C-alpha cells in the first residue's frame, strides 16, 4: 500500500505523505518555481525521475536515488541533427517542427524489471526516446520518427504533436504501445524495430466526415492498460471514451456516459480490467466540470454503467480541469489521487467512493503518481 504520492506542478515538485491518522499532507517541496511536467517513481520509492520544463532554458531531467533527498541532473532526451533542407512541418499549422525536445510528456520503465534501467520517454514534438541505462543516455527511436506517417501527426492543444502514453506489455517487454495527440495509437512487437498504426473503431468529429474513422488523426488524450490484463486498454479520446480488448487493434466507443464523455485523464484498476475512472468536463472549448460540479466517474463493468462519485468533492461551483496525467491509481487498486489546473489535490482510499482534499492552493498540477 502506497503512503506517498508525488505531484508535479507548474511551480515545483511536491511529495505528499499519509500520516498515521490517515491524513494526507504535503511533506516536501523540490524545484520550487520550476514547472515539473512528468514524474516516474521507481524501486520502492528510492529512485525518482522528474522532468522539468525550464521555459527559457529548455527541458531538463533530474534523478534522485534516495527518495528525493538529493537530486542530480541527468541528460535530457535530445534530437539528432536535423538534415539540411529537410521539409518537416506540422500539417495543421504549416510551421517547422523543431527537432528539439519541447516538453517531456511520458516516462515509463521498460518491462525487463525495474533494475534493468530501461526507460521509454515521449516528448513534444512527437519523439520517442529509449534509455537502457536509467536515463544516463537517450536514443531517439528513429523507426518511429522517420516513419512517413509521423509527418502527418498534428499538434492539438500544443503547437506540435506529442507522445503522452506509453504501455509496455508486462508479458513481453518488446511489445510497446504508444498514443499520440494527435496521431493515433501505434504499436511495436520488436522493441521499436518496426511500428504499426492501429485503432479500428476510433472516431473523431473534428476532421472531414470521411476521415472520422481514419486511425491516424485520432486525438487520444490518454490511454492506459490494465497491468494484469494488458490486452484491455481504456482511452479518453477528444471525442469520447473507448475500450479495447485486443491491445488497441479494435476499439468500442462507450455512449451515454454521465455527465460527459469528454476529459483528459483515465485510470484503470491494476488487476480488475473492467474497473476504470475518468474525470469528465464540458466538451470541448469550455473545459471545466459539467455545470461546474466536479465529479469522478467510475465503471466496474467494462463501461456498461458508470457511477458518478462526488463525496468529498466541492459543493460549490468548481472550475478544476484535470490534465491527462493528473489522475493516478496506486498498485493496491484502492487508492486514487487527482490534481487540477486550479491547484487542488484529492486522495481517495476507497476506489473513489469518497475523497479527501489535500490542498486547494497548490500551483496548477500537471501530473500525479503514487510511489512505486
Amino acid at each position, binding site marked *: 500500500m502506497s503512503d506517498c504520492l508525488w505531484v508535479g506542478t507548474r511551480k515545483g515538485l511536491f511529495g505528499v505523505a499519509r500520516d498515521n491518522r490517515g491524513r494526507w499532507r504535503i511533506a516536501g517541496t523540490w524545484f520550487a518555481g520550476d514547472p515539473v511536467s512528468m514524474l516516474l517513481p521507481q524501486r520502492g520509492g528510492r529512485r525518482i525521475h522528474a522532468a522539468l520544463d*525550464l*521555459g*527559457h*532554458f*529548455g527541458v*531538463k531531467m533530474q534523478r534522485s536515488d534516495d527518495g528525493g533527498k538529493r537530486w542530480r*541532473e541527468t541528460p*535530457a532526451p*535530445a*534530437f539528432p*541533427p*536535423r538534415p539540411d533542407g529537410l521539409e518537416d512541418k506540422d500539417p495543421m499549422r504549416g510551421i517547422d517542427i*523543431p*527537432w*528539439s*525536445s519541447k516538453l517531456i510528456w511520458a516516462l515509463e520503465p521498460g518491462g525487463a524489471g525495474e533494475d534493468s534501467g530501461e526507460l521509454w520517454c515521449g516528448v513534444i514534438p512527437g519523439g520517442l526516446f529509449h534509455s537502457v541505462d536509467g536515463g544516463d543516455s537517450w536514443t531517439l527511436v528513429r523507426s518511429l520518427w522517420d516513419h512517413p506517417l509521423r509527418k502527418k501527426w498534428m499538434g492539438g492543444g500544443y503547437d506540435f504533436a506529442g507522445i503522452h502514453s506509453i504501455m509496455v506489455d508486462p508479458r513481453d517487454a518488446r511489445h510497446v504501445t504508444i498514443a499520440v495527440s494527435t496521431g493515433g495509437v501505434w504499436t511495436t512487437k520488436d522493441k521499436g524495430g518496426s511500428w504499426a498504426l492501429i485503432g479500428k473503431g476510433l472516431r473523431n468529429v473534428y476532421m472531414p466526415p470521411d476521415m472520422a474513422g481514419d486511425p491516424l488523426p485520432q486525438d487520444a488524450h490518454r490511454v492506459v492498460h490494465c497491468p494484469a490484463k494488458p490486452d484491455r486498454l481504456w482511452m479518453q479520446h477528444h471525442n469520447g471514451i473507448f475500450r479495447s480488448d485486443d491491445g488497441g487493434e479494435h476499439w468500442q466507443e462507450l455512449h451515454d456516459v454521465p455527465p460527459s464523455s469528454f476529459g483528459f485523464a483515465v485510470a484503470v484498476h491494476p488487476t480488475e480490467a473492467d474497473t476504470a475512472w475518468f474525470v469528465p468536463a464540458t466538451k470541448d472549448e469550455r473545459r471545466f466540470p459539467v455545470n461546474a460540479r466536479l465529479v469522478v466517474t467510475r465503471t466496474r463493468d467494462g463501461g456498461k454503467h458508470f457511477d458518478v462519485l462526488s463525496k468529498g468533492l466541492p459543493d460549490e461551483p468548481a472550475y478544476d480541469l484535470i490534465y491527462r496525467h493528473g489522475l493516478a491509481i496506486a498498485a493496491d487498486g484502492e487508492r486514487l489521487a487527482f490534481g487540477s489546473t486550479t491547484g487542488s489535490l484529492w486522495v481517495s482510499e476507497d476506489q473513489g467512493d469518497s475523497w479527501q482534499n489535500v490542498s486547494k492552493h497548490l500551483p496548477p498540477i500537471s501530473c500525479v503518481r503514487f510511489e512505486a
Partner: protein
Amino acid sequence: MTMLRFTPNLHRLVDTPSARVAGATVAQVLACYFLANPRVRGYVLDDQGAVRKHVAVFVNRELIRDRIGLSDPVGENDDIFVAQALSGG
C-alpha cells in the same frame, strides 16, 4: 580572448562561471566554453545548436544576428553576455 558572462538567472540552475575564452565567432567561443562546462550547453542552445528561443546573446551591447549558426564575429576585447530574454519562460 573574449570575456563570456551569463545571466545570474542561470546560477541557481547550473554553474556558469565567467571566463575568458578563445574564438573568432560566438559559436567558437561558446564551443570552447562548453568543453569545460558541458552542462551549460543545453541551457543556452537547443538540440540543434541554435540559441534557445527565449535566450538572448549580446556581443558588447548588440544582440547577435545569427541565432542559428552563431557566426557573429568577436574580437579580443569583446564581451559576450548570455541573457534570459524577457519573452517566454
